[in-house]
């Protein structure tokens, strides 16, 4: 029989981190190709496609998430350094930051509080439990930050990751239309709102509209990452969703 060596190869591969690390990269590159072929439509978000492909593969092969993560953790680890690296686009925008300091600061505070309260409020209204609510609360912040907050407060970081990506897609698809309806014509304002609400995915969309909109979106993403990390835990404690300390 020929399938015995094949089984042995599979047993060997399944036990090594190489298989799922490679699969993650291959699926992502395939998803990027689909995204480009589809005219970079936000509906074809590469993260969503990659996740769907990988879940399909894991189910087909009967692989547990823990086994997958043993390989994929090398990619996951880079979220930390990527968060630190956000300091660089922020620093590059320092001149605009100074010129518009007050409107930006006020919009940042109001926006971050609105993002947290609207997610939790709508979740409560529709009957979500506390763990889901905590996982939802940081969804407008960029993923590494949102996941860190979710984990610290007792949410589910992996659920938060999916919610963050979904939020980005919603913002990228509906954001430009909504801002037009509201009569916003200033690209700085539009970009800032996109980056604060829909982080990196919103920023990618904003860059398609104009460079100014993209730059302000990136700025909002970096600022809201920090403001969310600082403001959301006390906010959730204040409304009684998270215990003190």
């Amino acid at each position, binding site marked *: 029989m020929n399938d015995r060596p094949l089984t042995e190869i599979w047993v060997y591969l399944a036990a090594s981190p190489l298989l799922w690390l490679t699969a993650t990269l291959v699926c992502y590159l395939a998803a990027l190709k689909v995204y480009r072929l589809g005219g970079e439509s936000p509906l074809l978000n590469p993260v969503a496609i990659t*996740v769907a492909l990988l879940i399909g593969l894991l189910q087909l092969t009967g692989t547990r998430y823990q086994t997958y993560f043993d390989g994929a953790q090398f990619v996951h680890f880079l979220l930390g350094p990527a968060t630190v690296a956000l300091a660089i686009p922020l620093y590059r925008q320092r001149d605009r930051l100074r010129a518009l300091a*007050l409107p*930006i600061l006020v*919009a940042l505070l109001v926006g971050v509080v609105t993002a947290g309260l*609207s997610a939790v409020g709508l979740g409560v209204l529709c009957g979500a439990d506390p763990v889901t609510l905590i996982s939802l609360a940081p969804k407008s912040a960029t993923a590494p930050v949102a996941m860190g907050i979710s984990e610290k407060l007792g949410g589910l970081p992996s659920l938060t*990751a999916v919610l963050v990506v979904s939020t980005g897609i919603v913002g990228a698809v509906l954001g430009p239309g909504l801002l037009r309806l509201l009569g916003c014509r200033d690209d700085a304002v539009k970009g800032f709102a996109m980056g*604060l609400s829909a982080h990196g995915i919103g920023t990618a969309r904003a860059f398609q509209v104009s460079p100014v909109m993209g730059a302000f979106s990136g700025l909002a993403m970096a600022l809201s990452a920090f403001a969310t990390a*600082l403001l959301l835990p006390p906010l959730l404690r204040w409304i009684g969703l998270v215990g003190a300390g």
Partner: protein
Amino acid sequence: MFDATGAGPRGGCALLEALTLILICQFAGEVAVLVTGLPVPGPVLGMLLLLAWLWRSGEVSERVGRTADTLLANLSLLFVPAGVGVMIHWERVRDQWAAITAALILGTLITLAVTALTMAGMQRLLARRREDGDE
């Protein structure tokens, strides 16, 4: 021998230096969070430390900038391993899909609108005050 990578020994070193700077900032951030019990994730504090460092040195050196751009250009890939984790929360998402959908769509639209209107309103307010000051 490093030339085989196409980057050359100096290119490789520059990347290494930039990565080391980023990792040191993250490390310092994580340690500071452990020591002080601050409610922010360690990497976020690391981001502030790097920002302070850049402000002090007065410029982004090309190698640090290029390394950061590479990391951030592929930011989406880094969400994938955690995103696949939704498979272990499948039942939660199915049971609470209405709440999750409402928070995702309405919550995001509300946040977009409130942020845009606040910033536009503040700019208008400041412009008006400046005009009054000029008269």
